[in-house]
């Protein structure tokens, strides 16, 4: 069973529907105890980093996610959910994240050419930079759907894919059993479904 964490940010309808389409049992839950019995965990999220991080902490979900991830349970953060995996974010101040992957979240404007529109919104090609189980059913150059104004600034060894938008932006990350997608696989058509399918087949790892 996959548990999609509901901590009061964003709409989980599409995400839940993708798993139904894949024939995988998934449940939306706001109960941190459900994370223990889950096979895999999805950390979604849209909106502001600080608000999401606070809600995750206040609900007790943050500690539960960290505990399960450290046990080796596969975890996938999506969009803001990916950004929350890092040490910290500089979105309107400086805020602590979950610290599951080294790095910091910074404004896209720091990285890309001037004059480009922000957010980086629309379909962009993935440049796969490392072999990963997450991309076993897709190809280099496949397009996925992005909507974001901040990006993960991090060591290359945890980056598994990038996207080119007047500069190189982190598109997907992995640290052992902890995965993250800056784009929305649940809105990326067949390619996105294939990424989620691959996540459902990843194995637990001891860290």
């Amino acid at each position, binding site marked *: 069973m996959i548990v999609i964490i509901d901590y009061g940010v964003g709409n989980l309808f599409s995400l839940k529907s993708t798993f139904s389409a894949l024939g995988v049992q998934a449940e939306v839950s706001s109960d941190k105890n459900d994370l223990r019995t889950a096979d895999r965990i999805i950390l979604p999220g849209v*909106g502001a980093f600080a608000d999401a991080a606070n809600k995750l902490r206040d609900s007790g979900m943050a500690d539960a996610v960290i505990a399960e991830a450290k046990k080796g349970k596969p975890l996938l953060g999506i969009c803001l959910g990916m950004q929350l995996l890092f040490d910290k974010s500089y979105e309107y101040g400086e805020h602590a994240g979950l610290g599951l992957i080294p790095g910091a979240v910074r404004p896209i404007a720091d990285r890309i050419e001037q004059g480009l529109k922000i957010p980086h919104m629309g379909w962009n090609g993935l440049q796969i930079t490392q072999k990963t189980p997450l991309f076993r059913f897709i190809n280099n150059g496949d397009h996925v759907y992005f909507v974001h104004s901040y990006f993960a600034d991090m060591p290359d060894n945890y980056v598994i894919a990038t996207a080119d938008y007047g500069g190189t932006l982190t598109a997907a990350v992995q640290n052992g059993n902890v995965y993250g997608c800056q784009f929305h696989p649940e809105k990326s*058509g067949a390619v996105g479904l294939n990424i989620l399918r691959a996540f459902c087949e990843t194995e637990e790892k001891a860290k």
Partner: protein
Amino acid sequence: MLTKRIIPCLDVKNGRVVKGVNFQGLGDVASPVELAKFYSDCGADELVFYDITASFEERKLFTDILRETASQVFIPLTVGGGINTVEDFDRVLKSGADKVSVNSGAIRNPSLVEEAAKRYGDQCVVLSADVKRVDGVFRVFAKGGRENTGMEAISWIRDCVARGAGEVVVNSIDTDGVKQGFDLEMLAAVCDAVQVPVIASGGAGSVEDFITLFRSVPGVDAGLAASIFHFGQVAIKDVKQAMLVNGIPARPV
């Protein structure tokens, strides 16, 4: 590289797609769910559902259809039509919409854009503007293009973006339905004025019109059309093919 988007727009009334559609191999051509799936398979980058119903009962039916579509079609969905309050945003977002477009609702109450952007984020709020030249000036029209508001269009659009609209659909009443190409002059004026994605609407009649659009106005991010796609006059995959051949970034089908 970020691709230019091709977006079909579906007008939905009483749970059915209005404007005739004629596709082979599509069992129920007026089913929004079937048509949405068909377009998604053909390479549409996004879909717009436009609710042209009025009554409460019909609105509920629209929301049901939206939910069914969103549970089967996994590309971004924008919903417009009858969006007048933050509660309307809430209703369609909970049913699976990713973005919500406001038109007359924003004209009646410009703070709607601000309130919605604050609650759901700028990326969620799309301003749709019906624009027509009156004595050489771009004017905003309300009520489906029937009523001249007297407002100058470029400053209206700029104002809404400042309030938090994260994307703008520019529908030129002058070129709409004529099928002689998009309104390049109007679109260039809007692109010069704002730093958010601009979607061109009104006037597409052929594959070449999309190529001309993206070549002539590089600031435009997407092209939207309805009847030419529905009637099969233009196939989305042909547009994509032509874009790639002409060096315009496109997501291949």
